[in-house]
């Protein structure tokens, strides 16, 4: 592989598919999306197949993931929020497994592509807007007019609320994408230093210990980030869904 930190994000077509001039090819990204789905559903299906009253290790992990997401959703959006549980749980599992698979060397990180994270964020915001209007009708727009604001300030505050609402899908998607992309780039850069320094003789080999340590530390950090970003994505999803359920602040 080339010593280029950006190369790892390169898409490569595996099965070219072209419909009406649009590129629907099955790429390495698609392959890892399939892998993510297979790993996530396969693990959870295998872990819960025993339906043990006393859980085994795998079932324990599955149950903890369930309780974790359910607790987050319930505390952010209340008991009514549980109707969105399958979606939120799917998002958490998909992002988490995608991030963790991306940590395997030479594996593709699907969440390092903005279009993927943006599509997931739009799914969340689309659900919020769709359900908000379906459930509350035009009252959903009350979300943008907070109570207890002086009449003079209402237009200003409403403008700010609208802008902040519109920036949500962008911040939600960019946060995940930028974290994964930047982290993997940094890892690759430091790993690349080891190789290029080692090529510079004995002193270089001795000095390359430093980027090696850095790479090891960054790998640990990246595992943390992989989990943390899945968590943050889930928490924000729950908070946005709360707006759809209770738009009156």
């Amino acid at each position: 592989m080339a010593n280029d930190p950006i190369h790892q994000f390169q898409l490569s077509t595996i099965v070219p598919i072209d419909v009406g001039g649009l590129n629907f090819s099955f790429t390495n990204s698609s392959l890892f999306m399939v892998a993510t789905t297979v790993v996530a559903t396969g693990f959870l299906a295998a872990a819960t197949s025993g339906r043990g009253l006393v859980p085994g290790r795998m079932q324990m992990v599955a149950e903890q993931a369930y309780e974790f997401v359910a607790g987050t959703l319930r505390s952010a959006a209340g008991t009514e929020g549980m109707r969105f549980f399958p979606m939120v749980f799917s998002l958490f599992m998909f992002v988490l497994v995608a991030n963790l698979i991306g940590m395997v060397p030479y594996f593709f990180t699907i969440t390092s592509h903005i279009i993927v994270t943006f599509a997931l964020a739009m799914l969340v915001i689309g659900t919020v807007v769709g359900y908000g209007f379906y459930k509350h009708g035009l009252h959903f727009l009350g979300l943008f007019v907070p109570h207890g604001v002086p009449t003079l300030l209402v237009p200003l505050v409403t403008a700010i609320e609208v802008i902040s609402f519109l920036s949500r899908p962008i911040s939600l998607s960019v946060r995940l994408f930028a974290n994964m992309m930047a982290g993997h780039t940094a890892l690759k850069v430091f790993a690349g230093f080891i190789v290029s320094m080692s090529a510079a003789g004995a002193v270089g080999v001795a000095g390359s210990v430093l980027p090696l340590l850095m790479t090891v530390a960054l790998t640990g950090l990246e595992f943390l980030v992989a989990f943390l970003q899945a968590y943050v994505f889930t928490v924000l999803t729950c908070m946005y869904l709360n707006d759809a359920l209770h738009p009156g602040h």
Partner: protein
Amino acid sequence: MAQTAHTEVPAHGAAHKAGFPPFESTYFPSQLLWLALTFGFLWWMMAKVIVPRLTDIIETRRDRISKDLGEAQRLKDETEAAIKGYDKALADARAKAQAIANETRAALNAEVEAKRHAAEAGLNEKLAAAEARIGEIKAQALGEVGGIATDTATALVNHLLGGTAGQDEISAAVAAAMQK
């Protein structure tokens, strides 16, 4: 294939070099299609299989635990009731025994008292009869004393004075003497 794709780099990607892979818009339809397919399948699996199964597992466990706790509470209550019943029976038996003992004691006392009364009454009766008889005998004896005295006086009078004294005079004299 990347060389064909650095035409539509969005503005905020300008800091990176041209053709930055995450912004290659030619691949966007492919990314979106396969994301929709894979995530859709994942979602469907979660909603239809995984989440109901996990809910079932966790609720079954919760029900089982609360059922077991309820059963334990029921058994505990039962035990307490049994202990209470036992204590009550014990107290009842004790009270009953006490009552029987008291009753028996009272009955025996009454019987003894009655017998004593009867015996005393009998004795009193006999005493009274004896006293009456004594009085009778005494009166009789005293009466005879009068007769004897009269006889003796008659004999003495006849012997000393000769002749005969009137019987009635002598009786009256004896009676007068005895009156003193």
